[in-house]
């Protein structure tokens, strides 16, 4: 109904306008050509000047109104080290073009008004003036030269890649319809290689896990942090179509291209909190962030550094948002320590894992670290329950007391511990589940404990400090009522006998 009324109104207005047109045309014929020209000159001359004034004033008023969106001004200052150069380039260009804009507009519409048609006026016959032409060729040429030189200086500084021996953090951003996946390097500081053909549901990035550099890489969930003041090199890729890695506050923008990694280097210079505190000073940012919730967070409180996509990538293009929080190095380190290796937490042991059944250096190192930590706890603890530790990576060939090859890593950790704490005396205990003859089980567990002790004595640990013991199925950890539980009960562990703390 509303549509119909609107349509009707439009039709009526059009008819009215056409009628006005016809009437004025008829009066024009009565008035005669000269009279029409005179009227035209008067009205449109004034309109020209009026438009020019309103337009120029409007431009300045609107610019004042939107001054907070001006680059490099107030709340819209860059949050990266290179951003200032770009913002000042923008502002220099703004001033130079602004001058030209104002002068040419005044001249154009003022001349049209001043030299409007008048009875008896003769137009001046000015066909050309080479000196003028030369002047207005030279001036733009000089201005452009200044802008080009400054611009290219800025461009080549900003786009320069990192120097291999400087200190920087390299992260990887992968665009896909319609989100971003961000990967951080592990403690080795290097991002592992990829091969798109390895992509699976679990391995969305197609990371090549044959590359040891990829084993410790981190793919954080929601929260992404960057340390303030640290140079960041973003390696940018896309899986399906073009995307664009766009961080407006950092003045960072670069296409993500399938099959062609690109990069952008920038240094965040303000933490999220610092930036929020700067915004706090502006009235605009003290408005509620969500207008429907007047008492909710204010705009400055809700501020985040947002990552967007700036290259049309399909129907969800407008929704590819992620948030980067910029924090101090300490906060970053604390967050980073909590991150798990993507490989070890998501892929290890699954079909995608090319190293299934192998123990990896990284695991050996990690287990050694964990072992020494729990050993330290056990030695220092006064609680009797803490004195027993599992040798969880020590395994035997099925039905025999022969140690598997990979058991040596855990046993070496134990050797190290025995050397670290020279007064330590331990009981090495073998346990089985309840399947089979209890006596046989006991015998087997005794033999397995002895195998462990033998491994240790072969490496110089005195036999007097080691008490092998086979418990068979007498000391289950959990009831033997499922395969899972029985597996838990088949174990080798050791208990610190002395020194008792």
């Amino acid at each position: 109904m509303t549509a119909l009324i609107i349509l009707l109104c439009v039709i009526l207005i059009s008819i009215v306008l056409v009628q006005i047109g016809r009437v004025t045309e008829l009066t024009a014929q009565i008035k005669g050509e000269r009279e029409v020209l005179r009227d035209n000159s008067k009205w449109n001359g004034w309109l020209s000047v009026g438009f020019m004034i309103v337009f120029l004033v409007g431009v300045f008023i609107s610019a004042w109104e939107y001054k907070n969106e001006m680059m490099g001004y107030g709340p819209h200052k860059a949050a990266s080290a290179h951003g200032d150069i770009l913002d000042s380039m923008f502002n220099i260009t703004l001033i130079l073009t602004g001058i030209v804009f104002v002068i040419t507009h005044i001249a154009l519409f003022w001349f049209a008004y001043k030299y409007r048609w008048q009875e008896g006026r003769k137009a001046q016959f000015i066909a050309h003036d080479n000196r003028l032409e030369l002047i207005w060729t030279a001036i733009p040429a000089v201005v452009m030269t200044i802008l080009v030189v400054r611009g290219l200086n800025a461009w080549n500084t900003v786009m320069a890649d990192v120097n291999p021996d400087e200190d920087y953090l390299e992260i990887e951003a992968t665009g896909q319809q319609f989100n971003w996946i961000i990967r951080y390097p592990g403690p080795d500081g290097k991002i592992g290689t990829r091969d798109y053909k390895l992509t699976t549901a679990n391995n969305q990035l197609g990371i090549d896990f044959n590359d040891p550099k990829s084993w410790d890489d981190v793919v954080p969930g929601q929260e992404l942090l960057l340390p303030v003041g640290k140079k960041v090199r973003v390696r940018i890729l896309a899986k399906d179509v073009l995307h664009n890695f766009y961080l407006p506050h950092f003045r960072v923008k670069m296409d993500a291209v399938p099959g062609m990694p690109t990069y952008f280097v920038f240094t965040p210079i303000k933490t999220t909190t610092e930036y929020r505190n700067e915004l706090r000073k502006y009235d605009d940012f003290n408005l509620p962030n969500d207008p429907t919730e007047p008492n909710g967070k204010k705009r400055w409180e809700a501020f985040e550094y947002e990552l967007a996509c700036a290259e049309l990538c399909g129907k969800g293009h407008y929704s590819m948002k992620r948030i980067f929080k910029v924090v101090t190095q300490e906060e970053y380190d604390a967050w980073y320590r909590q991150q798990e290796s993507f490989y070890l937490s998501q892929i290890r042991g699954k079909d995608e894992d090319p190293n299934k059944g192998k123990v990896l250096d990284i695991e050996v190192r990690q287990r050694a670290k964990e072992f020494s930590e729990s050993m330290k706890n056990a030695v220092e603890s006064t609680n009797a329950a803490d004195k027993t530790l599992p040798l969880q990576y020590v395994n035997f060939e099925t039905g025999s007391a022969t140690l598997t090859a990979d058991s040596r890593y855990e046993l070496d950790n134990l050797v190290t511990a025995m050397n670290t704490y020279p007064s330590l005396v331990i009981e090495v205990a073998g346990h089985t589940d309840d399947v089979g003859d209890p006596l046989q089980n006991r015998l087997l567990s005794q033999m397995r404990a002895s195998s462990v002790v033998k491994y240790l004595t072969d490496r110089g640990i005195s036999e007097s400090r080691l008490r092998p013991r086979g418990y068979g199925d007498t000391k289950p950890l959990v009831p033997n009522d499922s395969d899972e539980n029985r597996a838990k009960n088949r174990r080798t562990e050791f208990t610190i006998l002395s020194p008792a703390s």
Partner: protein
Amino acid sequence: MAHAVIAADTLEEKLTQELGYDDHFHEHHHGDKFQSNFLTTYIFSTDHKIIARQFLITGIFWAFIGAAMSIVFRLQLGFPEADLAWLKPLLGKWIQVNDAGIGKLDPEFYYALVTMHGTILVFFVLTAGLSGTFANLLIPLQIGARDMASPLLNAMSYWFFFLAGVVMFLSLFLSTGPFSGGWTAYPPLSALGQASDGSKAGMTMWIVAMSLFVVSSLLGGINYITTILNLRTKGMTMWRMPLTIWAILITAILGVLSFPVLFSGLLLLVFDRSMGTSFYLSEIIVGGQILDRIGGSPVLYQHLFWFLGHPEVYIIILPAMGIVSEVLSVHARKPIFGYRAMVYSILAIGFLSFIVWAHHMFMSGVNPFISNFFVVFTLIIAVPSAIKVFNWISTVYGSNFRFNSASLFALGFVSMFISGGLTGIFLGNSAIDIQLHDTYFVVAHFHIVMGIAAFFGMFAGVYHWFPKMFSRFMNETLGKIHFWGTLIGAYLIFWPMHYTGMAGVPRRYYAIDNFDSFKHFVSLNQFITIAAIVVFFLQVLFIINFFYSVFSGRKLTVKNPWGSNTLEWTTPIKPGHGNWPGNIPTTQRWAYDYGKGGEEFIAQFVPLKEGEHDHGH
């Protein structure tokens, strides 16, 4: 002045008799064998004047469609909460009505509308509609030729354009929708149907339509160049040609050199789409499927596309510049200032337009070192552009400026070209482009400088040459309402986009409220949408004025209503096939002797007086 017009009319007849060039032309008063019935006269005509009208009216049709599309997507953008269910009868399943009965534009179709709006306006309206109309109308009339070098080729150029339009129009009704990957059609999005519904049949039809369009453009362009170079009347040396013809000549050359590159780019895209090649594709996983394509580069397509794409924006703006130069000079009653400088700057712009294409690709992953060259060449274009602007302003200086719809739109063009051109200096500087690339700043820039400005040039031309095309005038009052409303309205639409762009709001976003950094612009978006709707209806007013005037506008009673120097005004009020009934007038001087030696104007066929200097030479 009416006095002078009548005097010129009789003088012209006398001079044409005496000095005219007799090419043994015989006029057929009741139509010749090529124009014997309605169908051959008005539909399958080979007469350049009819073809010009066909291009113009088809252009108006497409402009209406393209503008209406922009209103629909602006409604969604400006009023994201509003109920668009009332559009369901028109758009059907592309309006998603939720449980609460609120209708929303489907994002896929939003992007389809954005894409079609761009394609239609850039190619069908501002290339075919603008160049097609005025090249066809003005080349033979202003250089003194009976018709184009090949009238048949000329007609084919229109019909290929028509066919391209039919295919594009039909693609709007596909169940998967028309192409939706942006008018630049970047692969892999445009190459992979799995990536977007619009890249299925819609893209196939887009490519077919664009290929037909390239054919149309080439047939037209070759014809324009040949006609201008070979069919000029006696005395019409290159330096006596009106600036319209210079502009059209360079436009045609740009088109002939660059459209084939687009075509080859699209051809490789067809191979990638349907024959399993990998020109643009490499290492892609789409919809969970790992593609077997390796080694291609999407950036290659961007190079091929923009090798056309950048000259294309000059293909759009140069004819408008030519028209504005001519219209301004005629109505200022003063020679165009610096005719030679104007010609040289057209040549410079034309040349430079071929070596700046990668300024669209600063952020696309090309080696940043390469961008240095493109920054330099791009900013050099500011120099010839500035020369043109200063010359137009100087043309108005010291004039006796007649305000009418045509001259007002010419003034408006200069204002728009300044406003939009200056923002190009920001974007052409790669350092600033890092932030502004693909934001609303770009949208503001190109809409003002090649959208609105080119439209203003086109309007100036339509109002100015309407009497030549239809032997009637357009209504001046409506024309002035149209001008002032559109000038103000267009600035209200696009000026605020500079601010959203500076704030970093990316273009081609279906909604901006996902981002805290952008969402405070929702109310400004609303304002822009309202301005766009008002401007849209002002253009409807123009269309009403146009068709009303075709049939019942004020009749043209004199041959040369504007007191113009150029040869088209020496033809009869209703010129037949062949343009001049008798001899073709010859050219004795340049086109801009306005106000010379106390004369209001001296037409081009008037011989130089003893010792008089011809400014064209």
